[in-house]
Protein backbone atom coordinates (compact mmCIF):
# COMPACT_ATOMS: atom_id res chain seq x y z
CA UNK A 1 0.00 0.00 0.00
CA UNK A 2 1.22 3.50 -0.78
CA UNK A 3 1.47 5.78 2.26
CA UNK A 4 2.13 9.51 2.45
CA UNK A 5 1.96 10.09 6.14
CA UNK A 6 1.15 8.48 9.49
CA UNK A 7 -0.13 10.24 12.57
CA UNK A 8 0.32 8.41 15.84
CA UNK A 9 -0.99 9.26 19.27
CA UNK A 10 -0.78 7.43 22.57
CA UNK A 11 -2.90 8.78 25.43
CA UNK A 12 -4.10 7.47 28.77
CA UNK A 13 -1.91 5.22 30.86
CA UNK A 14 -1.51 5.82 34.58
CA UNK A 15 0.43 9.01 33.88
CA UNK A 16 -1.97 10.29 31.23
CA UNK A 17 0.95 11.84 29.37
CA UNK A 18 0.41 12.19 25.64
CA UNK A 19 2.93 10.72 23.24
CA UNK A 20 2.51 11.67 19.60
CA UNK A 21 4.32 11.64 16.28
CA UNK A 22 3.77 12.65 12.69
CA UNK A 23 5.70 10.48 10.31
CA UNK A 24 6.19 11.82 6.83
CA UNK A 25 7.20 8.78 4.79
CA UNK A 26 9.55 10.85 2.61
CA UNK A 27 11.51 11.99 5.66
CA UNK A 28 12.45 8.63 7.14
CA UNK A 29 15.23 6.20 6.17
CA UNK A 30 14.37 3.79 3.36
CA UNK A 31 14.63 0.63 5.49
CA UNK A 32 12.34 2.06 8.17
CA UNK A 33 9.89 3.10 5.49
CA UNK A 34 9.85 -0.43 4.06
CA UNK A 35 9.34 -1.92 7.52
CA UNK A 36 6.39 0.36 8.28
CA UNK A 37 4.72 -0.36 4.96
CA UNK A 38 5.17 -4.08 5.50
CA UNK A 39 3.69 -3.88 9.01
CA UNK A 40 0.71 -1.89 7.79
CA UNK A 41 0.08 -4.27 4.89
CA UNK A 42 0.16 -7.22 7.31
CA UNK A 43 -2.68 -5.77 9.37
CA UNK A 44 -4.98 -5.01 6.42
CA UNK A 45 -5.11 -1.58 7.95
CA UNK A 46 -7.73 -0.27 5.53
CA UNK A 47 -10.12 -2.95 6.66
CA UNK A 48 -9.78 -2.27 10.38
CA UNK A 49 -12.79 -0.61 12.03
CA UNK A 50 -12.42 2.98 13.24
CA UNK A 51 -12.69 1.85 16.82
CA UNK A 52 -11.33 -1.44 18.06
CA UNK A 53 -13.07 -2.10 21.32
CA UNK A 54 -13.40 -5.76 22.07
CA UNK A 55 -13.87 -5.38 25.78
CA UNK A 56 -14.27 -2.74 28.44
CA UNK A 57 -11.13 -0.62 28.65
CA UNK A 58 -8.77 -1.70 31.40
CA UNK A 59 -8.13 1.12 33.86
CA UNK A 60 -4.87 2.92 33.02
CA UNK A 61 -4.23 1.06 29.80
CA UNK A 62 -2.80 3.07 26.91
CA UNK A 63 -5.14 4.28 24.19
CA UNK A 64 -3.68 4.35 20.68
CA UNK A 65 -4.76 6.29 17.64
CA UNK A 66 -3.18 5.64 14.25
CA UNK A 67 -4.14 7.66 11.19
CA UNK A 68 -2.78 6.62 7.81
CA UNK A 69 -2.90 9.11 4.98
CA UNK A 70 -2.73 7.57 1.52
CA UNK A 71 -3.14 9.69 -1.63
CA UNK A 72 -5.36 12.17 0.18
CA UNK A 73 -7.48 9.49 1.81
CA UNK A 74 -7.34 9.11 5.58
CA UNK A 75 -8.13 6.09 7.70
CA UNK A 76 -7.94 6.34 11.48
CA UNK A 77 -8.04 3.50 13.99
CA UNK A 78 -8.50 3.94 17.74
CA UNK A 79 -7.68 1.07 20.07
CA UNK A 80 -7.10 0.41 23.74
CA UNK A 81 -4.14 -1.74 24.73
CA UNK A 82 -6.37 -4.69 25.64
CA UNK A 83 -8.24 -4.67 22.34
CA UNK A 84 -5.17 -4.42 20.09
CA UNK A 85 -4.94 -7.31 17.64
CA UNK A 86 -1.59 -9.10 17.87
CA UNK A 87 -0.56 -8.14 14.38
CA UNK A 88 -0.89 -4.43 15.17
CA UNK A 89 1.53 -4.70 18.10
CA UNK A 90 4.79 -4.49 16.11
CA UNK A 91 3.58 -1.38 14.24
CA UNK A 92 2.69 0.28 17.56
CA UNK A 93 6.17 -0.51 18.85
CA UNK A 94 7.86 1.12 15.86
CA UNK A 95 5.64 4.20 16.05
CA UNK A 96 6.16 4.50 19.81
CA UNK A 97 9.91 4.43 19.25
CA UNK A 98 9.71 7.14 16.59
CA UNK A 99 7.42 9.25 18.81
CA UNK A 100 9.82 9.04 21.73
CA UNK A 101 12.69 10.20 19.53
CA UNK A 102 10.61 13.04 18.04
CA UNK A 103 9.54 14.17 21.52
CA UNK A 104 13.10 14.43 22.68
CA UNK A 105 14.08 16.45 19.61
CA UNK A 106 11.41 19.09 20.16
CA UNK A 107 13.41 21.05 22.71
Amino acid at each position, binding site marked *: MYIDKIKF*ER*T*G*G*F*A*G*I*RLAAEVDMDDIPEDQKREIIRLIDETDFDELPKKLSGK*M*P*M*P*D*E*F*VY*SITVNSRGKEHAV*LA*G*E*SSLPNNLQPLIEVLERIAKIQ*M*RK*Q*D
Partner: protein
Amino acid sequence: MHTHNHPINCIVPPYMLEDIATKGTKSQRELAIRTLKTSEQMRGQRRALADFSGAVSRFAAVGGKERIVYDAQNGSSLPGTPVRNEGDGPTSDVTVNEAYDGSGATYDLFNDIYNRNSIDAKGMRLDSTVHYKKGYDNAFWDGEQMVYGDGDENLPVSERLFNRFTIAIDIIGHELTHGVTQFEAKLVYSQQPGALNESMSDVFGSLVKQRTLNQRADEADWIIGAGLLTENVNGIGIRTMKAPGTAYDDPVLGKDPQPGHMKDYVNTVSDNGGVHINSGIPNRAFYVTAMELGGYAWEKAGQIWYVTLRDKLGANSKFQDCANLTYLTASELYGNGSLEQKAVKKGWAEVGLTVDGSTPPPTTEPGDGCLSSLLRLIGAAPEK
Protein backbone atom coordinates in the same frame (compact mmCIF):
# COMPACT_ATOMS: atom_id res chain seq x y z
CA MET B 1 -37.73 -25.69 64.18
CA HIS B 2 -37.78 -22.75 66.51
CA THR B 3 -38.95 -19.62 64.79
CA HIS B 4 -37.22 -16.49 65.88
CA ASN B 5 -39.70 -13.69 66.31
CA HIS B 6 -37.82 -10.71 64.90
CA PRO B 7 -39.52 -10.06 61.62
CA ILE B 8 -37.15 -8.27 59.26
CA ASN B 9 -39.42 -6.47 56.86
CA CYS B 10 -36.84 -5.52 54.34
CA ILE B 11 -34.50 -6.90 51.79
CA VAL B 12 -31.00 -6.58 53.04
CA PRO B 13 -28.59 -5.69 50.26
CA PRO B 14 -25.98 -8.37 49.55
CA TYR B 15 -23.07 -6.19 50.66
CA MET B 16 -24.73 -5.79 54.06
CA LEU B 17 -25.12 -9.53 54.34
CA GLU B 18 -21.48 -9.92 53.56
CA ASP B 19 -20.58 -7.31 56.14
CA ILE B 20 -22.48 -9.24 58.75
CA ALA B 21 -20.92 -12.47 57.60
CA THR B 22 -17.48 -11.00 58.06
CA LYS B 23 -18.18 -9.12 61.30
CA GLY B 24 -20.38 -11.45 63.29
CA THR B 25 -19.36 -14.39 65.40
CA LYS B 26 -20.33 -17.87 64.28
CA SER B 27 -23.48 -17.91 66.39
CA GLN B 28 -24.44 -14.41 65.24
CA ARG B 29 -24.11 -15.48 61.65
CA GLU B 30 -26.21 -18.57 62.25
CA LEU B 31 -28.84 -16.50 64.00
CA ALA B 32 -28.87 -14.05 61.12
CA ILE B 33 -29.24 -16.83 58.56
CA ARG B 34 -32.01 -18.49 60.56
CA THR B 35 -33.84 -15.21 60.97
CA LEU B 36 -33.54 -14.41 57.32
CA LYS B 37 -34.81 -17.84 56.36
CA THR B 38 -37.96 -17.42 58.43
CA SER B 39 -38.60 -13.89 57.26
CA GLU B 40 -41.55 -13.42 54.94
CA GLN B 41 -39.53 -10.94 52.93
CA MET B 42 -36.80 -13.39 52.20
CA ARG B 43 -39.10 -15.73 50.28
CA GLY B 44 -38.12 -15.42 46.68
CA GLN B 45 -34.77 -14.01 47.73
CA ARG B 46 -33.04 -17.35 47.42
CA ARG B 47 -30.23 -15.88 45.41
CA ALA B 48 -29.41 -13.33 48.05
CA LEU B 49 -29.47 -16.07 50.64
CA ALA B 50 -27.22 -18.26 48.53
CA ASP B 51 -24.83 -15.32 48.22
CA PHE B 52 -24.92 -14.95 51.96
CA SER B 53 -24.08 -18.59 52.67
CA GLY B 54 -21.39 -18.40 50.02
CA ALA B 55 -19.94 -15.31 51.64
CA VAL B 56 -19.77 -17.08 54.98
CA SER B 57 -17.95 -20.08 53.58
CA ARG B 58 -15.61 -18.01 51.40
CA PHE B 59 -14.79 -15.86 54.36
CA ALA B 60 -14.13 -18.91 56.48
CA ALA B 61 -11.77 -20.18 53.81
CA VAL B 62 -9.79 -16.97 53.51
CA GLY B 63 -7.68 -15.68 56.35
CA GLY B 64 -7.38 -12.10 55.20
CA LYS B 65 -4.36 -10.44 53.69
CA GLU B 66 -2.90 -12.66 51.00
CA ARG B 67 -0.44 -11.42 48.40
CA ILE B 68 1.58 -12.88 45.58
CA VAL B 69 4.12 -10.93 43.55
CA TYR B 70 5.01 -12.31 40.13
CA ASP B 71 7.89 -11.47 37.82
CA ALA B 72 7.08 -11.16 34.09
CA GLN B 73 10.83 -11.11 33.34
CA ASN B 74 10.27 -8.35 30.76
CA GLY B 75 7.76 -10.45 28.86
CA SER B 76 4.09 -9.75 28.33
CA SER B 77 2.43 -12.91 29.58
CA LEU B 78 0.57 -12.59 32.86
CA PRO B 79 0.89 -13.28 35.69
CA GLY B 80 4.48 -14.58 35.24
CA THR B 81 6.60 -16.47 37.77
CA PRO B 82 5.71 -16.19 41.46
CA VAL B 83 8.63 -14.67 43.36
CA ARG B 84 7.20 -13.64 46.74
CA ASN B 85 4.26 -15.17 48.59
CA GLU B 86 2.41 -13.94 51.67
CA GLY B 87 4.64 -14.19 54.68
CA ASP B 88 7.88 -14.59 52.71
CA GLY B 89 10.74 -12.29 53.67
CA PRO B 90 12.05 -9.55 51.38
CA THR B 91 13.82 -10.56 48.17
CA SER B 92 16.88 -8.89 46.66
CA ASP B 93 14.63 -7.19 44.10
CA VAL B 94 13.44 -3.78 45.33
CA THR B 95 10.57 -3.74 42.79
CA VAL B 96 9.17 -7.01 44.12
CA ASN B 97 9.37 -5.71 47.69
CA GLU B 98 7.68 -2.43 46.81
CA ALA B 99 4.80 -4.27 45.15
CA TYR B 100 4.49 -6.55 48.17
CA ASP B 101 4.64 -3.79 50.78
CA GLY B 102 2.47 -1.37 48.81
CA SER B 103 -0.32 -3.88 48.25
CA GLY B 104 -0.09 -4.77 51.94
CA ALA B 105 -0.43 -1.13 52.99
CA THR B 106 -3.42 -0.75 50.66
CA TYR B 107 -5.03 -3.87 52.09
CA ASP B 108 -4.48 -2.47 55.58
CA LEU B 109 -6.08 0.91 54.81
CA PHE B 110 -9.24 -0.68 53.46
CA ASN B 111 -9.34 -3.37 56.15
CA ASP B 112 -8.36 -1.41 59.27
CA ILE B 113 -10.08 1.88 58.47
CA TYR B 114 -13.01 0.99 56.24
CA ASN B 115 -13.59 -2.54 57.49
CA ARG B 116 -13.26 -3.94 53.97
CA ASN B 117 -11.64 -7.33 53.49
CA SER B 118 -9.64 -6.78 50.29
CA ILE B 119 -10.71 -5.59 46.85
CA ASP B 120 -13.91 -7.60 46.61
CA ALA B 121 -14.71 -7.35 50.36
CA LYS B 122 -14.38 -11.14 50.46
CA GLY B 123 -10.67 -11.56 50.99
CA MET B 124 -9.59 -11.70 47.35
CA ARG B 125 -5.87 -12.41 46.94
CA LEU B 126 -3.81 -9.42 45.80
CA ASP B 127 -1.74 -10.37 42.77
CA SER B 128 0.93 -8.08 41.34
CA THR B 129 3.20 -8.56 38.35
CA VAL B 130 6.41 -6.56 38.09
CA HIS B 131 8.96 -6.17 35.26
CA TYR B 132 6.20 -6.22 32.66
CA LYS B 133 7.59 -5.88 29.11
CA LYS B 134 10.68 -3.82 28.19
CA GLY B 135 10.64 -0.05 28.43
CA TYR B 136 7.03 -0.15 29.60
CA ASP B 137 6.28 3.25 31.10
CA ASN B 138 2.97 2.37 32.68
CA ALA B 139 1.05 0.46 35.34
CA PHE B 140 -2.50 -0.82 35.08
CA TRP B 141 -5.24 -2.94 36.64
CA ASP B 142 -6.30 -5.67 34.19
CA GLY B 143 -9.54 -6.51 35.98
CA GLU B 144 -7.89 -9.19 38.10
CA GLN B 145 -4.43 -8.01 39.07
CA MET B 146 -1.94 -5.14 39.16
CA VAL B 147 0.73 -4.86 36.47
CA TYR B 148 3.84 -2.64 36.67
CA GLY B 149 6.39 -1.66 34.09
CA ASP B 150 9.97 -0.59 34.80
CA GLY B 151 9.73 2.77 33.04
CA ASP B 152 12.45 3.63 30.52
CA GLU B 153 14.94 1.15 31.93
CA ASN B 154 15.96 0.20 28.38
CA LEU B 155 17.22 3.71 27.52
CA PRO B 156 20.53 5.32 28.51
CA VAL B 157 20.24 6.97 31.96
CA SER B 158 20.54 10.44 30.45
CA GLU B 159 17.43 9.85 28.31
CA ARG B 160 15.17 8.21 30.85
CA LEU B 161 11.97 9.99 31.82
CA PHE B 162 10.28 7.37 34.01
CA ASN B 163 11.50 5.24 36.89
CA ARG B 164 9.88 1.93 37.87
CA PHE B 165 6.15 2.26 38.56
CA THR B 166 6.27 0.65 42.01
CA ILE B 167 8.46 3.52 43.22
CA ALA B 168 5.50 5.49 44.60
CA ILE B 169 3.20 3.68 47.03
CA ASP B 170 0.21 5.77 45.93
CA ILE B 171 0.50 4.23 42.44
CA ILE B 172 0.00 0.82 44.02
CA GLY B 173 -2.95 2.09 46.04
CA HIS B 174 -4.28 3.71 42.87
CA GLU B 175 -4.23 0.45 40.92
CA LEU B 176 -5.84 -1.58 43.71
CA THR B 177 -8.57 1.00 44.14
CA HIS B 178 -9.52 0.44 40.50
CA GLY B 179 -10.30 -3.07 41.70
CA VAL B 180 -12.47 -1.79 44.55
CA THR B 181 -14.36 0.49 42.14
CA GLN B 182 -14.85 -2.44 39.80
CA PHE B 183 -16.63 -4.34 42.60
CA GLU B 184 -18.61 -1.37 43.90
CA ALA B 185 -19.73 1.69 41.90
CA LYS B 186 -18.50 0.13 38.62
CA LEU B 187 -17.91 3.61 37.23
CA VAL B 188 -17.73 3.43 33.42
CA TYR B 189 -14.19 4.23 32.27
CA SER B 190 -15.08 7.18 30.05
CA GLN B 191 -15.85 10.89 30.35
CA GLN B 192 -16.99 12.09 33.80
CA PRO B 193 -17.74 8.66 35.32
CA GLY B 194 -14.26 7.61 34.14
CA ALA B 195 -12.66 10.71 35.66
CA LEU B 196 -14.45 9.91 38.95
CA ASN B 197 -13.09 6.36 38.69
CA GLU B 198 -9.60 7.85 38.24
CA SER B 199 -10.11 10.31 41.08
CA MET B 200 -11.20 7.58 43.53
CA SER B 201 -7.97 5.77 42.70
CA ASP B 202 -5.91 8.90 43.36
CA VAL B 203 -7.80 9.65 46.59
CA PHE B 204 -7.26 6.24 48.16
CA GLY B 205 -3.79 5.92 46.65
CA SER B 206 -2.82 9.16 48.37
CA LEU B 207 -4.46 8.03 51.62
CA VAL B 208 -2.40 4.82 51.56
CA LYS B 209 0.71 6.98 51.34
CA GLN B 210 -0.41 9.44 54.02
CA ARG B 211 -1.29 6.64 56.43
CA THR B 212 2.01 4.87 55.79
CA LEU B 213 3.84 8.10 56.59
CA ASN B 214 1.46 8.95 59.46
CA GLN B 215 0.80 12.38 57.95
CA ARG B 216 -2.07 14.71 58.74
CA ALA B 217 -3.81 16.42 55.81
CA ASP B 218 -1.69 19.57 56.20
CA GLU B 219 1.54 17.56 56.34
CA ALA B 220 0.90 15.52 53.20
CA ASP B 221 2.26 16.53 49.78
CA TRP B 222 -0.90 15.38 47.92
CA ILE B 223 1.29 14.42 44.96
CA ILE B 224 0.47 11.34 42.90
CA GLY B 225 3.52 9.51 41.59
CA ALA B 226 6.24 11.46 43.43
CA GLY B 227 9.60 10.00 42.37
CA LEU B 228 8.26 8.40 39.21
CA LEU B 229 9.76 11.04 36.92
CA THR B 230 13.54 10.95 36.62
CA GLU B 231 15.93 13.84 37.19
CA ASN B 232 15.77 14.55 33.46
CA VAL B 233 12.23 15.85 33.84
CA ASN B 234 11.13 19.14 35.31
CA GLY B 235 8.37 17.94 37.61
CA ILE B 236 7.45 16.83 41.11
CA GLY B 237 5.17 13.96 40.11
CA ILE B 238 2.36 12.97 37.77
CA ARG B 239 -0.54 14.80 39.37
CA THR B 240 -1.16 17.04 42.35
CA MET B 241 -4.48 16.93 44.15
CA LYS B 242 -3.68 20.19 45.87
CA ALA B 243 -2.89 22.21 42.74
CA PRO B 244 -3.96 20.27 39.64
CA GLY B 245 -2.06 21.33 36.51
CA THR B 246 1.24 22.07 38.26
CA ALA B 247 2.85 18.63 38.66
CA TYR B 248 5.22 19.01 35.71
CA ASP B 249 6.15 21.46 32.99
CA ASP B 250 8.82 19.98 30.81
CA PRO B 251 10.20 20.54 27.29
CA VAL B 252 9.84 16.83 26.45
CA LEU B 253 6.78 15.73 28.41
CA GLY B 254 4.85 18.96 28.06
CA LYS B 255 2.76 20.49 30.82
CA ASP B 256 0.47 18.81 33.34
CA PRO B 257 -2.96 19.15 31.64
CA GLN B 258 -5.15 18.78 34.72
CA PRO B 259 -7.83 21.35 35.49
CA GLY B 260 -8.73 22.10 39.11
CA HIS B 261 -12.04 23.80 38.38
CA MET B 262 -15.14 23.09 36.28
CA LYS B 263 -14.56 26.20 34.18
CA ASP B 264 -11.42 24.55 32.81
CA TYR B 265 -12.99 21.13 32.16
CA VAL B 266 -11.27 19.55 29.14
CA ASN B 267 -13.44 18.06 26.40
CA THR B 268 -11.42 15.50 24.45
CA VAL B 269 -11.74 12.12 22.79
CA SER B 270 -8.21 11.13 23.84
CA ASP B 271 -7.61 9.22 27.06
CA ASN B 272 -11.15 7.74 27.09
CA GLY B 273 -12.55 11.25 27.23
CA GLY B 274 -9.90 12.78 29.46
CA VAL B 275 -10.25 10.47 32.45
CA HIS B 276 -6.69 11.21 33.64
CA ILE B 277 -7.14 14.91 32.92
CA ASN B 278 -10.47 15.92 34.43
CA SER B 279 -9.90 13.80 37.55
CA GLY B 280 -8.07 16.90 38.79
CA ILE B 281 -11.45 18.49 39.57
CA PRO B 282 -12.82 15.86 42.00
CA ASN B 283 -9.26 15.33 43.31
CA ARG B 284 -9.09 18.92 44.41
CA ALA B 285 -12.60 18.74 45.92
CA PHE B 286 -11.35 15.90 48.13
CA TYR B 287 -8.20 17.80 49.06
CA VAL B 288 -10.16 20.91 50.09
CA THR B 289 -12.63 18.82 52.11
CA ALA B 290 -9.80 17.02 53.90
CA MET B 291 -8.00 20.28 54.66
CA GLU B 292 -11.21 21.80 56.02
CA LEU B 293 -11.61 18.87 58.37
CA GLY B 294 -7.97 18.72 59.42
CA GLY B 295 -6.41 15.70 61.11
CA TYR B 296 -5.84 12.47 59.22
CA ALA B 297 -7.54 12.65 55.82
CA TRP B 298 -8.34 8.93 55.80
CA GLU B 299 -10.53 9.27 58.86
CA LYS B 300 -13.43 11.56 58.02
CA ALA B 301 -12.97 12.71 54.42
CA GLY B 302 -11.81 9.23 53.41
CA GLN B 303 -14.75 7.60 55.18
CA ILE B 304 -17.24 9.89 53.41
CA TRP B 305 -15.67 9.17 50.01
CA TYR B 306 -15.42 5.44 50.69
CA VAL B 307 -19.07 5.02 51.72
CA THR B 308 -20.11 7.09 48.71
CA LEU B 309 -18.08 4.84 46.40
CA ARG B 310 -19.42 1.69 48.02
CA ASP B 311 -23.11 2.56 48.46
CA LYS B 312 -24.06 5.59 46.46
CA LEU B 313 -22.29 6.12 43.16
CA GLY B 314 -23.44 4.22 40.09
CA ALA B 315 -21.85 3.29 36.78
CA ASN B 316 -22.82 6.56 35.08
CA SER B 317 -22.41 9.01 37.96
CA LYS B 318 -21.03 12.42 37.07
CA PHE B 319 -19.20 15.04 39.11
CA GLN B 320 -22.43 16.73 40.22
CA ASP B 321 -23.80 13.37 41.41
CA CYS B 322 -20.62 12.73 43.35
CA ALA B 323 -20.91 16.19 44.96
CA ASN B 324 -24.52 15.58 45.97
CA LEU B 325 -23.86 12.03 47.16
CA THR B 326 -20.78 12.80 49.25
CA TYR B 327 -22.86 15.58 50.84
CA LEU B 328 -25.63 13.07 51.55
CA THR B 329 -23.16 10.54 52.95
CA ALA B 330 -21.66 13.19 55.23
CA SER B 331 -25.10 13.91 56.66
CA GLU B 332 -25.79 10.20 57.18
CA LEU B 333 -22.45 9.61 58.87
CA TYR B 334 -22.04 12.83 60.83
CA GLY B 335 -25.44 14.51 60.85
CA ASN B 336 -27.28 17.13 58.86
CA GLY B 337 -25.60 20.51 59.19
CA SER B 338 -22.46 18.93 60.67
CA LEU B 339 -19.01 20.41 60.17
CA GLU B 340 -18.20 17.39 58.02
CA GLN B 341 -21.12 18.10 55.73
CA LYS B 342 -20.11 21.75 55.45
CA ALA B 343 -16.56 20.74 54.59
CA VAL B 344 -17.84 18.57 51.74
CA LYS B 345 -19.94 21.45 50.43
CA LYS B 346 -16.92 23.74 50.53
CA GLY B 347 -14.74 21.16 48.78
CA TRP B 348 -17.03 21.02 45.78
CA ALA B 349 -17.72 24.77 45.80
CA GLU B 350 -13.97 25.38 45.38
CA VAL B 351 -14.03 23.50 42.09
CA GLY B 352 -17.19 25.17 40.84
CA LEU B 353 -19.87 22.68 41.86
CA THR B 354 -22.75 23.64 44.13
CA VAL B 355 -24.10 20.68 46.05
CA ASP B 356 -27.79 20.13 45.71
CA GLY B 357 -28.98 18.73 49.01
CA SER B 358 -32.64 19.33 48.24
CA THR B 359 -33.28 16.13 46.32
CA PRO B 360 -34.48 13.27 48.50
CA PRO B 361 -31.87 10.57 49.13
CA PRO B 362 -31.89 7.85 46.49
CA THR B 363 -33.44 4.68 47.86
CA THR B 364 -30.37 2.50 47.57
CA GLU B 365 -31.02 1.27 51.10
CA PRO B 366 -34.70 0.48 51.62
CA GLY B 367 -35.24 1.91 55.06
CA ASP B 368 -32.33 2.37 57.39
CA GLY B 369 -34.60 1.17 60.19
CA CYS B 370 -34.63 -2.42 59.05
CA LEU B 371 -30.88 -2.43 58.61
CA SER B 372 -30.29 -1.20 62.14
CA SER B 373 -32.74 -3.72 63.53
CA LEU B 374 -30.95 -6.54 61.77
CA LEU B 375 -27.61 -5.32 63.06
CA ARG B 376 -29.02 -5.00 66.59
CA LEU B 377 -30.45 -8.48 66.28
CA ILE B 378 -27.06 -10.00 65.68
CA GLY B 379 -25.39 -7.67 68.14
CA ALA B 380 -23.43 -5.70 65.57
CA ALA B 381 -25.25 -2.38 65.68
CA PRO B 382 -22.88 0.47 64.90
CA GLU B 383 -22.20 3.00 67.63
CA LYS B 384 -23.90 6.32 67.08
